[in-house]
């Protein structure tokens, strides 16, 4: 403000004004205004591409994620993953600064590759970009090839790279780009005509639940199928504490990743988030490549197992049939606690698809569905899920909306509980309803990323946390005369 401005006196916001606005932001009128906004995004449920790319990089054996861009970007992705998993997330950057805008990032990339290779002794470095090199138009293909020519990294050292501009799409697109890049780098010339290694390639998608990865492997083992889980972060982000720090505690073995084009089949659990990777597989191999919803809930798990059975000519074994029976038993026992209850959920398209399916199976209503970023195709897909069940009637899909929209929705058209990331906790508090922590990120509860929610066991876990949270709420809020031993 210019110096000619009159100097004003400090004023305090009065309790009356606070009370007025507190009431106003809960109204229909406010909801209308809130939904009319076109420019500002408030409390989004999506992050940017490089986060997904880094998750993928952590999922390969001995792989150091390498951010080409400012060091602050790398610090942010590392912190985001570390806070959710409560595990180390080793990654480096090319530490570009202002002069990069003038001269380009090649020198930084050169130095970064040489130093990281020497210091952290990775088996592979997965390079992905943040904003700056994307805007100035750095040519990664040329830079990395030049780095080899200069002898900064060995000629045969794997350095797959992906362009992951933060101003295009979300973390799930970065996941896809990096995964495609790593696989095509490692496997493209390893295709052997007529070879079938008998394995399944499984792509979990942007999944930050290490328990899910272990569960995928267990289900495949039960089916007698040899599986390569791609971008497998189950060990990377859930490693033992035994007194030794290991920067690369797990991940998909590079040798296995190099053999993906000789697999018996490929299955992606992400309908809307593995487009590029799937396209690559389909171009490179004649083996079946399928995309289907993640096995969240009984029906999705049934379909998953039947798909495995079909692809590999196997029968679903007795132990899995019994497991299914136990899940159905648990769901039937607890149905009364969820039946017709309304929930608000938010997250990525594929995650939402799974949650919708599970809630409908319980006779519960996924009443407000907030999808932070998605296309009309996604809306149509999710709507079809709702339309297939009577419990989907009157439920709403809110495409390209955020958690401040969610607040208006919950205040004007209430639900019984929220299911989603920690970022929803302000809404839950204002609405005075329970919040079941789920998805990514969970920053305020422990160990939830270790509890799987896929498969039959996952359905039981999911049900347990939802039903018990609602029951806890009944106990917490009931009057003395209705406070009973049994529920």
């Amino acid at each position, binding site marked *: 403000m210019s110096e000619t401005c009159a100097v004003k006196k*400090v004023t305090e916001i009065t309790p009356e004004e606070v009370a007025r606005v507190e009431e106003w932001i809960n109204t229909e009128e406010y909801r209308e205004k809130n939904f009319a906004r*076109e420019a500002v995004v408030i409390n989004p449920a*999506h992050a940017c591409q490089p986060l997904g790319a880094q998750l993928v990089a952590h999922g390969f054996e001995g792989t150091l994620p390498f951010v080409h861009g400012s060091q602050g970007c790398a610090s942010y992705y*590392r*912190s985001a993953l570390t806070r959710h998993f409560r595990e180390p997330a080793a990654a480096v950057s090319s530490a570009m*600064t202002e002069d990069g805008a003038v001269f380009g990032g090649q020198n930084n990339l050169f130095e970064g590759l040489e130093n990281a290779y020497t210091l952290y002794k990775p088996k592979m470095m997965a390079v992905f970009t943040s904003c700056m090199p994307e805007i100035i138009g750095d040519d990664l293909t040329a830079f990395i090839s030049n780095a080899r020519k200069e002898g900064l990294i060995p000629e045969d050292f794997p350095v797959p790279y992906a362009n992951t501009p933060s101003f295009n799409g979300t973390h799930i697109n970065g996941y896809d780009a990096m995964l495609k890049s790593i696989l095509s780098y490692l496997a493209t010339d390893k295709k052997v005509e007529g070879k079938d290694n008998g394995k399944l390639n499984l792509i979990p998608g942007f999944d930050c639940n290490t328990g899910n990865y272990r569960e995928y492997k267990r289900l495949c083992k039960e089916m007698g199928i040899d599986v390569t889980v791609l971008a497998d972060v189950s060990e990377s982000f859930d490693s033992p504490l035994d007194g030794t720090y290991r920067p690369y505690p797990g991940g998909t073995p590079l040798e296995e990743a190099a053999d993906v084009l000789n697999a018996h089949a490929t299955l992606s659990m992400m309908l809307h988030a593995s487009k590029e990777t799937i396209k690559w597989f389909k171009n490179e191999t004649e083996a079946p490549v399928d995309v289907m919803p993640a096995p969240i809930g009984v029906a999705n798990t049934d379909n998953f197992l039947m798909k495995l059975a079909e692809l590999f000519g196997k029968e679903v074994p007795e132990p899995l049939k019994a497991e299914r029976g136990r899940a159905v038993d648990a769901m039937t026992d607890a149905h009364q606690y969820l039946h017709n209850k309304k929930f608000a959920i938010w997250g990525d398209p594929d995650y939402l698809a799974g949650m919708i399916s599970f809630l409908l199976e319980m006779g519960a209503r996924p009443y407000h569905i907030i999808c932070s970023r998605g296309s009309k195709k996604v809306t149509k897909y999710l709507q079809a899920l709702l339309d297939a069940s009577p419990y989907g009637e009157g439920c709403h899909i809110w495409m390209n909306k955020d958690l401040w929209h969610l607040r208006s929705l919950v205040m004007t058209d209430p639900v019984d509980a929220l299911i989603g990331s920690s970022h929803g906790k302000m809404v839950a508090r204002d609405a005075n309803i329970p919040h079941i922590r789920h998805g990514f990120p969970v920053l305020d509860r422990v160990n939830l990323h270790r509890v799987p929610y896929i498969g039959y066991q996952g359905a039981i876990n999911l049900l347990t946390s939802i039903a018990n949270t609602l029951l806890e709420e009944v106990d917490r809020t009931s009057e003395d005369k209705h406070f009973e031993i049994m529920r």
Partner: protein
Amino acid sequence: MENENAAVKAPLEGIEKQATEELIDKTLELYPEKARKKRAPHMSANDPGVEGCTVKSNRKTVPGVMSARGCAYAGAKGVVWGPIRDMTHISHGPVGCGYYSWGTRRNLVEGHQGVDVFSAMQFTSDFQEKDVVYGGDKKLAKICTEVRELFPLAKGISVLSECPVGLIGDDINAVAKKSSSELGVPVVPCNCEGFRGVSQSLGHHISNDSIRDYVIGTYEFKDEPTDYDIALIGDYNIGGDAWASKKILEELGLNVKAIWTGDGQIEHIAATHQVKLNLIHCYRSMNYMAKVMEERYGIPWMEFNFFGPTKIAASLRAIAARFDQKIQDNAERIIEKYTPMMQAVVDEYRPRLEGKRALLFVGGLRPRHTIGAYEDLGLEIVGTGYEFAHNDDYDRTYEEMAKGTLIFDDASEIELETWAKEYKVDLVGSGVKEKYVFQKAGIPFRQMHSWDYSGPYHGYDGFPIFARDIDMAINSPTWGLVKAPF
């Protein structure tokens, strides 16, 4: 501030300058030649007063090295602007920067989020390809209008630029000026793109400059000024720190008219030119504005340290010395009142912590300011370093550390691992990215940026919590389970 411990620190058993220099050489051997040369001036065996034993700082991070540093945007959003409770802070650019820094600094505030305070919310322009191609200025103007309408009690808007904004040549300053006059609230542009400078530090400086250019002097306090009006500068209210500090200062008889910026209110900050003294806790992030206020308004400033009873008492006396006898008497009375309570804390925890060794690697002020609190509990600091300090921070650090201890700048993870192992430390105090690295290695750890979701650690309220936390980190029975019996 005058160093009340001007006497040279007692040496630590087994810590010799030569051995530390050898350790530095060994550490540097990990690097390729060019990086070795770059890193070498950033670590030194401490020898206060000896010219050759200084540490170079505020230089570019070495590419490919696992640095803990953030960027200018992080310094602007996370440190200076973010904690101001009654403004909406727009992360201008793609969605990520605002998303990753959302609610992660623990700047607590009084008020109802979304009603009269907004600090735990994430406002972003969520740039898409078209914004990069056609520019985001129009979108920014619209954002300002929208947040003004949706959050009528917000006292202003800050616009924090992310990398693309500066690279595509948007003019947020022009938009801010126009929006401010149209909307009738301050709209403060802050050109803190992450590629500027070498760390968070330039973000602090740029933010201080934007306060200088757009905020200071634009408001006056309602009440008549008194001789006891002060501002608390560089306290970000992590876990309630500023509240604990404010409590003592008020007990001392001073009026805390503004806090920069923990639980901060923009109009109070804007009227700070009326106070009589600026008290600075985090010198690194706020010294710029303290100096501006000194030059422009003749307001003196002094540093102080509210970590641990020894430093608190020394600081209270130093602060009181700037005022009359009444305040000086109050200082003695407060020290007398709290000393037995603090002694009880020391008596409880010190026997379990005596002689334990710690390595610190943090941000603005803590690598030096927390040393006294550890020492009150009987711990010894064998090494300390900063992510983004400047020479004047190191000048304030050497004397706080014993001869031969390790002082370092912008350490990489592999360096910290090497040192923690070599010194067989009992505790590492650093950030979340480092935490689990050390815990996996069986080394107790406390996050010293976020107080590990605890706090406050400032003041007399903070010390018992600090002591409890350090004790439980080092003495948790879970450490006894690390080695399997088979």
